[in-house]
Every structure is written in C-alpha cells, then in structure tokens.
C-alpha cells in the first residue's frame, strides 16, 4: 500500500534534502555494521592486491641488492613488468591490443597499472558490501516512516545513494593514497608526478566503476525488506551476470558458429565490460566508458526510484 503524501513536506526533489540525507548517511555509515565491513574489506582487498605485486618486487630488489652489480627497483620493474610475457597477460586480461598494453606498462607506471587491473576486478564485489543496505534495513524496521514526515521519497532514495557514493569515495581515496605513497617512498621505482597522475586516473576509474554497482544496490535494496537478502542478491547479480554472459557467449559460438571476435559487444551490456576502457590510452574511449558507466548508473537509479516511489514503506 502506498504511503499517504504528507502535507508539510515538499512534493518535489530538493537538493538541500538530498545533501542533508547524504551527509548524515555518510557520517553515520561507520556506525552501521555495513559501513565498517566495507571499509575493512576495501582496505584489506586493495592493500592485498597491491601486496601481490609489490612484495615479490621488493624481495627481488632486496635479493639483487646483495649481489654486486645487481639491479635496482627501476630496472627490475622495467625488466619484469615491461616484458613480452606480462604484455601478453595484460592483453589477455583487458581483451585489448598491443598499443593498450604498451600504454599501461610502458607509458604509465607499470606496477600501479598491474595493481589497478586486478583491483578493478574486485571493485564490483567490494562495492556491494558498502551499498547493499541503502534502504532495506530501514524498510524492514519501518524507520523510513519518520523521514517521510519531513521529506519526499525521491530525496531519501537519492540522499542514501549519494551518501554511499561519498563514503565509497573517501574509502577509495584512503586506500589509493596508502598504495601510491608506499610505491613512491618505499619502492621508489617511478617519478612522483607520473605516479600521482596515473594514481588519480586509477582512482577515477575505481570511482566510475563503482557508481553503477552502487545504483544497482540502491535498486535491489529498495526491492527487499532484509538487508542480508539485499547483500546476497547484489553479490549474486554482480557475479552470476558474468557467468550467464560467459555461458551465453559460449553457446552462441558453439551452436550458431558465431565468430568470438564479433561477440565483444556482449560483455559491454554490463558495466563489467567497460571497466578496462576506463584506463584506456585514448581519451575518447575513456570518455565513452565514463558515459557508459553514468548511463548504467542512471538506468539502475531510475528503476530503483520507480519501485521506491510505489512500494509500501
């Protein structure tokens, strides 16, 4: 049953209300278990991914420094990360050409590129931990009824979304800052300017990739009355959509004898398929990927908002 509209609340979208709800949502994110878990998971995953590449490099530098005429961090990084084998691996992971792998490994700090490539795989899943409980918990506890006396549904929905986006930005900046500072001062393989510029672009890529998944979680969160159910469904959608896409691709190739190269567009029906374009060397491709992410975000938000406006709170 729909809630009756309140007479004292504004019936239209109010940026002030959205900002107020977003600010308090972000401020109290840590007080909720979800916000704390997200911060812990994102920091641990981000730093573990970085450690996956940095620790072996540091071990090699340590080992080589003990040998007369051994290589330093710059030489080791260049020798390993800019090798043909790594370039092939990057081409395979990113499903791109040699130009793009050269851009990632030779024109930009290769170590940070490697970290970002793996981090982008984890982002859709880690994002779910921070965004799953935008409204579902309060729907279950009927807590939103108190807010509905003071503002409209659209402001609550958008305010919670913006709050999660802000909290995600803060968490992402914190994690990337630790990684970049560590690479700059401890590893010391790249110039500061290159590292920070590329780090900023990586940060933007993580941010834009997380946007559609936060919007997806906003939609799922207002569909369900349980926050745990919302988390489970968000994670399932993020993971199973990829499995379904892969199975569909395989079946099209095997049954309809389609050329695998011609099915590249299939993966781009999901935000997942655009993630590495966010780190592309061509600014136009990068901009298209950003627009695609914003498009997905808008679509999920509109679907969520449509349901949130109608549902019983």
């Amino acid at each position, binding site marked *: 049953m729909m809630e009756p509209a309140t007479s004292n609340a504004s019936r239209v979208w109010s940026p002030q209300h959205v900002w107020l709800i977003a600010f308090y949502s972000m401020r109290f994110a840590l007080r909720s*278990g979800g916000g*704390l878990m997200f911060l812990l998971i994102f920091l641990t995953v981000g730093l573990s991914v*970085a450690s996956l590449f940095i620790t072996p490099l540091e071990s090699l530098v340590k080992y080589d420094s003990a040998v007369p005429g051994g290589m330093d961090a710059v030489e080791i990084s260049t020798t390993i990360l800019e090798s043909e084998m790594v370039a092939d691996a990057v081409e395979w992971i990113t499903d791109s050409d040699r130009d793009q792998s050269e851009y990632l490994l030779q024109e930009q700090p290769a170590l940070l590129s490697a970290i970002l490539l793996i981090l982008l795989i984890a982002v859709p899943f880690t994002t779910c931990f921070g965004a799953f409980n935008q409204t579902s918990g309060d729907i279950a506890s009927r807590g939103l009824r108190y807010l509905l006396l003071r503002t409209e549904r659209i402001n609550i929905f958008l305010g919670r979304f913006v709050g999660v986006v802000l909290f995600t930005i803060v968490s992402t900046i914190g994690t990337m800052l630790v990684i970049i500072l560590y690479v700059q001062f401890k590893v010391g393989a790249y110039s500061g300017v290159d590292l920070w510029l590329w780090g900023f672009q990586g940060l933007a890529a993580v941010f834009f990739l997380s946007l559609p998944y936060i919007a997806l979680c906003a939609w799922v969160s207002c569909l369900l009355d349980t926050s745990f159910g919302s988390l489970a469904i968000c994670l399932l959608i993020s993971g199973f959509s990829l499995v379904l896409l892969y199975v569909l691709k395989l079946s099209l190739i095997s049954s309809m004898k389609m050329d695998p190269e011609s099915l590249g567009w299939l993966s781009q029906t999901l935000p997942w398929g655009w993630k590495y374009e966010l780190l592309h060397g061509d600014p136009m491709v990068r901009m298209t990927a950003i627009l695609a992410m914003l498009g997905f975000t808008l679509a999920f938000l509109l679907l969520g908002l449509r349901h949130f406006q109608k549902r019983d709170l």
Partner: protein
Amino acid sequence: MAEGKRPGGLTALAVLNFVFGGLGALAVLGMIALVGVVAGAANIATDGEAGELMVEAGLSGGMLMVTIVLMAASCALLIVSGVGYLKQKRVLGRTMGTLYGILALLGTAIGIAGGQGFELATIIGLVYPVLTLILINTTFKEDLVN
C-alpha cells in the same frame, strides 16, 4: 546513548574481535608447537646445528618469546574487549580495545626494530588495530560508557 540500542558497527566490531582473537589464539598455539619442534630438534642436534636451525626458521630466541607473549596478550585483549563492546562497557570495551590497539602498534614497532622490515603486509596488519583505535575513541565513544 549508553542505555540506547547498540549500534550495528559496534556489534560488527565485537564479532570481528572474536574472529581475529580466535584466529590469533590458534596462531599462538601453532607458534608454541613450532618452538617445541625446534627445541626437540635442538636436543638432537649439536649446539651449532641448533643455532643454524633457528636461523633457518627465521627465529631468534628472545624475539620469538616477545612475539608469542605480545600475540597472546593481543588475543586476550581482543576477546575481552569484544565482550566489552557487546555490553557497551567503558573499561572492558573502550579501555581494553584501546590497549589492544596500542599493543598491536607496539608489536609492529618492535618487529620493525627487530629487523622484520616494513612491508605492505605490515600496513595490512595495522588496518584493524588502527581502525579499532579510531572508532572506539571517536564514533563509538559515547556508546561505551556503561
């Protein structure tokens, strides 16, 4: 605030304390077993060989004991403060939690001074103690007053 409902974050922190405390206790038991194995091998080997065994295992007697004691104390503090968070106690929760955070930082500092080195894994290990220190002394400060 103290009489109010416990925030979800504080409950999550308590659960994490029990998880990390339990895993840490297992690690302490494992280290004690390792010491037993090394000591047993040292009884068989000559003095020089025993020293080499210790070095090969990356252990020095004093540092190992300090590590085991610090880890055991951290685990105990984690579990005790976890109970304190659930009951929203000031001493059992906030004080013990703060002590855990300080002990973990101290343990890391001793490890670095002892030659373990500062790596990214060190920072990962510091994430939880630092978060605990910040959260229980700011976000959950008013909730731990019983």
